[in-house]
């Protein structure tokens, strides 16, 4: 019997040489006359162990990592293809503490299966949610999503079910489902991992959304920085269509749903929902004023559900297991789980799906293992480039939409970027303004001009020019941007700036002893 060996095809693993590892295993096995069946899976999300090679044994899958091509002959010498001991062996994958302590609902299949295998998908509970949705009345599908407590995972945390109900209740000849896969926030990669590692899950979620609100066409807007995810989705859509899961009669139910992937073009602002619609329509990605809400007049002026990849990918499970199953995770008004992404200066970076309520300290220390550099962690930016810098004194605040808002921070898309004590926070504040200069769509003045002035003012503060006056000016500027911008780009750029200033004033040359 041939040994079944898993080597990830996730682009993070590929960026560390997974393709060369797969080739080395094939070559070495042939040279030794050992039969191997190499499966290319998604990533388990333990990136410090990538390339993570798994071997199927009677005791389950056994992990080896990080494997380099030059390790492969030694692994065969040790008998890794039977699950034998080796310095790179971590034992059964499922028992690695980083994985064992997670609550993987949305990511249940990612890393376990061959992403493009429909058989694998079905064998791991795939399309159960869609089958349930087909049997229900559309309004009942929407009700299930509402009852689950699911809120928009892109960052805005708007209740998904309410959005769907608005589209369902708006009569139109044509409605759309638009999936926002323009995952531009630094420190985030969960959308990419899911699209590359379990694309049918997103396809299933979008199909359920289509049937629920009466939309027959869906678009997935993928950023151009994700060529691999784009190709995986294209291939998956082709296979799903050929098998009858998409098309004129979804799974033979008599109702239609079609899906197409579109590629963005390197504009961060197109992650804002109305800018994304403009881009899908072939225009400059300029933000639209609301109202009208996209749920009433969205893509090509028609009622449109716009959801993030993570929101749509949570839906199949909610339908398959019931709203209560999902709602039982989490706390307060933050229900279910969030796939957190640990990035930056950490020993153990990767994907951690946990129920809301986990603290930053648990994520950074218990899962992340502290800094990669070995130096003390000083801060973490949570929620992308528009998220606040959270100081170590606030690492114990539970990650929950409301409790984070109360400390002037945001959970956002769950990206967490850790910094050690060498970080210069004045430089990071300047970076936030400079990023807004580069990525502002230009429609509203507070964002377009405010960001340019913001860089100049921070430069003067750093240089020590009239520091008191310029700090007051920066404060006023941030206030204008917060209150006067059309969307979150200008409206939230002050978050990283002001949190850096508030928690780390000494980095700006402010004499905290004198100020006190």
């Amino acid at each position: 019997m041939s040994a079944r060996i898993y080597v990830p095809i996730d682009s993070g693993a590929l960026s560390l040489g997974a393709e060369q590892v797969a080739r080395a295993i094939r070559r070495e096995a042939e040279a030794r006359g050992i039969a191997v069946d190499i499966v290319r899976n998604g990533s388990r999300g333990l990136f410090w162990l990538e390339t993570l090679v798994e071997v199927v044994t009677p005791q389950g899958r056994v992990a080896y990592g990080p494997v380099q091509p030059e390790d492969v002959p030694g692994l065969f010498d040790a008998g890794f293809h039977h699950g034998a001991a080796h310095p790179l062996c971590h034992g059964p994958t499922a028992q690695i503490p980083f994985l064992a302590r997670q609550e993987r609902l949305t990511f249940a299949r990612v890393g376990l299966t061959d992403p493009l295998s429909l058989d694998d998908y079905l064998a791991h509970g795939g399309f159960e949610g869609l089958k349930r949705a087909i049997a229900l009345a559309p309004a009942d599908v929407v009700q299930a999503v509402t009852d689950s407590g699911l809120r928009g995972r892109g960052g805005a945390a708007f209740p998904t079910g309410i959005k769907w109900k608005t589209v369902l209740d708006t009569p139109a000849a044509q409605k759309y489902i638009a999936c926002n896969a323009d995952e531009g926030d630094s420190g985030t990669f969960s959308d990419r991992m899911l699209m590359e590692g379990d694309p049918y899950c997103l396809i299933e979620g979008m199909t359920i959304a289509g049937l629920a609100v009466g939309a027959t066409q869906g678009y997935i807007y993928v950023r151009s920085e994700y060529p691999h995810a784009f190709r995986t989705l294209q291939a998956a859509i082709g296979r799903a269509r050929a098998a009858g899961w998409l098309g004129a009669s979804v799974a033979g139910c008599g109702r239609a749903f079609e899906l197409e992937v579109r590629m963005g073009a390197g504009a961060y602002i197109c992650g804002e929902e109305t800018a994304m619609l403009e881009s899908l329509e072939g225009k400059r990605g300029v933000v639209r004023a609301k109202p009208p809400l996209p749920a009433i007049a969205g893509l090509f002026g028609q009622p449109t559900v716009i959801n993030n990849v993570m929101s749509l990918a949570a839906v199949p499970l909610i339908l398959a297991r019931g709203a209560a199953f999902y709602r039982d995770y989490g706390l307060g008004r933050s229900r279910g789980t969030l796939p957190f992404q640990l990035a930056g200066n950490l020993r153990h970076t990767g994907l951690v799906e946990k129920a809301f309520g986990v603290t930053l300290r648990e994520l950074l220390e218990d899962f992340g293992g502290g800094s990669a550099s070995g130096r003390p962690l000083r801060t973490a930016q949570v929620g992308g480039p528009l998220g606040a810098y959270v100081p170590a004194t606030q690492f114990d605040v539970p990650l929950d939409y409301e409790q984070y808002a109360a400390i002037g921070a945001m959970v956002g898309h769950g990206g967490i970027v850790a910094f050690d004590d060498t970080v210069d926070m004045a430089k990071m504040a300047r970076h936030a303004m400079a990023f807004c200069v580069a990525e502002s769509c230009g429609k509203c003045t507070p964002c377009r001009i405010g960001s340019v002035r913001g860089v100049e003012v921070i430069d003067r503060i750093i240089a020590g020019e009239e520091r008191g006056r310029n700090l007051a000016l920066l404060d006023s500027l941030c206030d204008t941007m917060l209150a006067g911008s059309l969307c979150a780009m200008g409206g939230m750029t002050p978050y990283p700036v002001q949190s850096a200033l508030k928690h780390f004033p000494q980095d700006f040359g402010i004499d905290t002893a004198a100020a006190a």
Partner: protein
Amino acid sequence: MTTPLPKTAELDALIQAHRTLPGATLPILHAIQDAWGYIPDEALPRIATALNLSRAEVQGVVSFYHHFRRTRPGRHVVQVCRAESCLAMGADALEAHARATLGIDVHQTSADGAVTLEPVYCLGNCACSPSIRVDDDIHGRMSPRRFDALVAELRATSGEGVTA
């Protein structure tokens, strides 16, 4: 870059292949840039005519998006990530090394035409920072030493990768 100047017939064929898609502008621009590495001047009026847009509207779309180029790049495009996660792991030093090694600033092409250097804000490889992208391939945990090895490889190859 060895790809010859686009013939108008080839441009028209690409435009025709995508013209009927709803919101066809971006798919058409992607197809053209994938084929030639940039959006040549000749393309703009032809896209405008096909989509019943003004030339200014097409120009406006091209100039809005960082991804689209109006000039011919080097045989390979190297993007160095400048976003927070990579900054936390030494992206500043890596970019400085890239500029020094190639003898160019960002948005410029090395004298031998091998490499165009660009900044990028996030490649979604934040668990393996710092990251760079070479054509369509992402490389994680990049060090100056590995960067030099990669550039040596790029200089030795002809550069089909850019149109992949």
